[in-house]
């Protein structure tokens, strides 16, 4: 296991480095074909050195962590049941790793570039167009490559503390454990690798030798794989839906068998303990009904609203659980989600939607029945799985009990759920907001790289440029505002385009409401932050609340005006600031010798209005900022008026 962990770290280090290097090479030269590359070392010395370091790690040459991992692997192989065979395989595979590493470094970076054959004229961009990558691109792999070497040299200091907590036992890792069998085998592997590299050309040349060369074996293996793949491919018709069925189906199959085993012999009874339970059952029925309705409903908009109803009903169930924090988040997220769907629907033109609706309703009965059967089977599987989980759960969960008992004593906060989120499982939360922020940035990158020529661009300057490039106006029409203003046709066009994006909800009343609501939303957010430890609501709800305030602006004022009036809101950096703040808060205790994520409670600070301060506040603020930034980014990009064609 120790070896496996070290191996994992090594792979992470060198693979990430090499992928990044490959990306840089691809970016710089426009090709990834080995035959076309060469001599890049002179043009990109930094990248060459990085690739060299990573390759050395991969090859397992002594001073790196790769060497240690390989040593461990050989050691483990020697002790395994079929030791001779396994060891031979390990040595052989490391030898091939060495070969690959040499090929990589030598052919791409050191060997002078091959002559162009002329045929690659259109694509073979190497030589001429190689542009040196930006420092930022190189920095990432550089850090990783250096890490690979450093961790090798200082393995006792750096890696051992990392994996010791996982293994739960003392571990020993040495860079050089003396001249023993693994060491010798390791050297052998490197030697064989080098030999294979130099013998590569003759091997390639003399394919006709009766002894199957590595290449022939390889080809045979590839042929076999291809044949198998062709067989598999026959079941692949490129329809997303069937892939989903296959994946879900197999998972359910695996799960439900074990689920059935657990279920047998236990009695299942449904008990209604209190009136709250009856209410819960009603809400459950409501949410299921609304979900079912969203399937039957023809129009997307109504279906989305039905889903919203289902979500709110689930929120109601949470409230009755009673889980007020969760219910609050569920209500808010449901609202934001519904707003998002509706905004998105507005961006998809009516003909497109009509087309799929027609397809859907003209679908053959057989198809519907097939899907229904699949869905039923999967639903049954999941139901059984859940049932077995519910029936077999321990009635007294010690982990939970510990949290309940200690929340107040340790953290001076009364909301146990909040303490779990921000402290006991704070790491999860940091990762969670990171994921959320990444999702937001993902949406941003997805939607902000439109196809050229398919985008309406709304700033007057861009508009002018676009018109000019289309030859609709003369080249000499300047970008100056005066000339724009004088061109009535252009002005009219711009006005028409802007009118399309202007909202139809912009009545005086809604405008005033939206203007008032945003500051109030921010105020509510502040309250959530301050009282997060003792009442429902925390940084996340604060973020979503203010996100909703922003959403209202986009809906009421339309994209252009909202953007103009919210210039102070720069959501994308907010994500980074928020996550940074959260990590900073988690890391600060390290300076004082306390563990990561330690919460400092300021008990003796007597503040007005029953506010309890602790370092959690900083964390909450981080969550708030990143979530608000994230939801604003998502809204902004989805609301961005590109290809507005009317609802």
């Amino acid at each position, binding site marked *: 296991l120790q070896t496996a962990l070290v191996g994992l770290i090594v792979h992470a280090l060198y693979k990430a480095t090499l992928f990044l290097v490959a990306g840089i090479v691809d970016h710089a030269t426009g090709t990834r074909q080995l035959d076309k590359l060469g001599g890049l070392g002179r043009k990109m010395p930094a990248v060459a050195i990085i690739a060299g370091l990573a390759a050395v790690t991969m090859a397992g040459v002594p001073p790196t962590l790769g060497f240690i991992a390989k040593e461990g692997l050989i050691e483990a192989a020697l002790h395994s049941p079929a030791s001779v065979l396994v060891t031979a395989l390990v040595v052989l595979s490391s030898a091939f790793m060495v070969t690959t590493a040499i090929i990589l470094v030598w052919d791409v970076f050191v060997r002078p570039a091959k002559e162009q054959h002329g045929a690659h004229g259109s694509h073979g961009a190497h030589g001429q167009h190689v542009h040196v990558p930006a420092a930022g691109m190189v920095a990432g792999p550089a850090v990783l490559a250096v890490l690979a070497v450093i961790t090798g040299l200082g393995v006792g200091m750096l890696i051992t503390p990392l994996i010791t907590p996982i293994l739960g036992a003392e571990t020993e890792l040495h860079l050089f454990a003396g001249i023993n069998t693994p060491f010798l085998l390791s050297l052998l592997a490197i030697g064989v690798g080098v030999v294979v590299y130099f013998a590569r050309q003759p091997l390639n040349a003399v394919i006709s030798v009766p002894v199957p060369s590595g290449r022939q074996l390889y080809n045979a293996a590839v042929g076999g794989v291809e044949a198998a793949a062709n067989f598999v491919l026959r079941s692949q018709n490129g*329809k*997303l*839906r069937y892939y989903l069925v296959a994946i879900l189906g197999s998972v359910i199959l695996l799960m439900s068998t074990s689920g059935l085993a657990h279920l047998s012999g236990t009695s299942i009874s*449904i008990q209604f303990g209190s009136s709250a*339970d009856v209410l819960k*059952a009603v809400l459950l029925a409501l949410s*299921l009904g609304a*979900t079912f309705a*969203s*399937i039957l409903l023809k129009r*997307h908009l109504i279906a989305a609203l039905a*889903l919203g109803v*289902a*979500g709110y009903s*689930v929120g109601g*169930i*949470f409230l009755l*659980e009673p*889980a007020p*924090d969760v219910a609050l*988040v569920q209500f808010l997220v449901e609202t*934001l989600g519904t707003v998002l*769907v509706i905004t*998105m629907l507005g*961006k998809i*033109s009516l003909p*497109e*939607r009509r087309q*799929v609706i027609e*397809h859907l309703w003209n679908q053959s009965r057989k198809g519907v029945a097939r*899907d229904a059967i*699949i869905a039923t089977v*999967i639903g049954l*599987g*999941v*139901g059984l799985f*859940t*049932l077995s*989980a*519910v029936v077999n*759960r321990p009635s007294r*969960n010690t982990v*939970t009990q510990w*949290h*309940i008992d200690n929340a*107040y004593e340790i953290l001076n906060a*009364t*909301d146990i759920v909040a303490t*779990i*989120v921000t402290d*006991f499982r704070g790491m999860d939360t940091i990762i969670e907001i990171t994921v*959320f922020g990444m*999702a937001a940035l*993902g*949406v941003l990158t*997805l*939607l902000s790289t439109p*196809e050229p020529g398919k985008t309406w661009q709304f700033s007057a300057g861009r508009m002018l440029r676009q018109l000019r490039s289309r030859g609709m106006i003369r080249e000499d029409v300047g970008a100056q505002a005066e000339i724009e203003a004088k061109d009535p046709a252009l002005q009219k066009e711009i006005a028409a385009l802007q009118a399309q994006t202007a909202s139809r909800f912009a009545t005086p009343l809604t405008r005033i409401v939206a203007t008032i609501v945003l500051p109030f939303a921010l105020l509510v957010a502040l309250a959530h932050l301050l009282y997060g430890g003792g009442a429902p609501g925390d940084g996340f709800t604060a973020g979503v609340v203010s996100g909703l305030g922003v959403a209202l602006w986009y809906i009421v004022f339309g994209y252009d005006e909202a953007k103009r009036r919210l210039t102070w809101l720069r959501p994308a950096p907010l994500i980074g600031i928020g996550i940074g703040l959260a990590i900073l808060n988690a890391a600060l205790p390290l300076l004082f010798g306390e563990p990561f994520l330690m919460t400092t409670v300021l008990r003796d600070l007597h503040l007005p209005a029953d506010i309890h301060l602790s370092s959690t506040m900083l964390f909450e603020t981080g969550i708030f900022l990143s979530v608000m930034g*994230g939801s604003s980014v*998502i809204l902004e990009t989805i609301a961005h008026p590109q290809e507005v064609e009317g609802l």
Partner: protein
Amino acid sequence: MSVLLAIATGVMFGLGVFQLLRRDLIKAGMGFYILFTAINLLFIAVGAFDGKVAAYSTLLGSGQVSDPLVQALLLTAIVISFGTYAVLLGLISVSSRRYQTVDPDAVDKLKG
């Protein structure tokens, strides 16, 4: 009660899968959302306690509190699923913008 929730989870999941299989990216996106809701129900179903009061330290004396650990996990799940949903919606928008259709099969045909 949690038995009922477990059954509902199954039903909800089935509905989600059915919706997911529609030949319509928008409906499929909604299907994902239904799946998320089903998972949320699952979390509530497997909570260890049959709670009577909310999980606050001040209320500990007044009855069995609901299971806070499950709720904390649920909070995380909701946030992540919202993020995922947003990305899905973004993808649907891209499909509409780039291929002028939200029919997944039609996108296939365009690719050739």
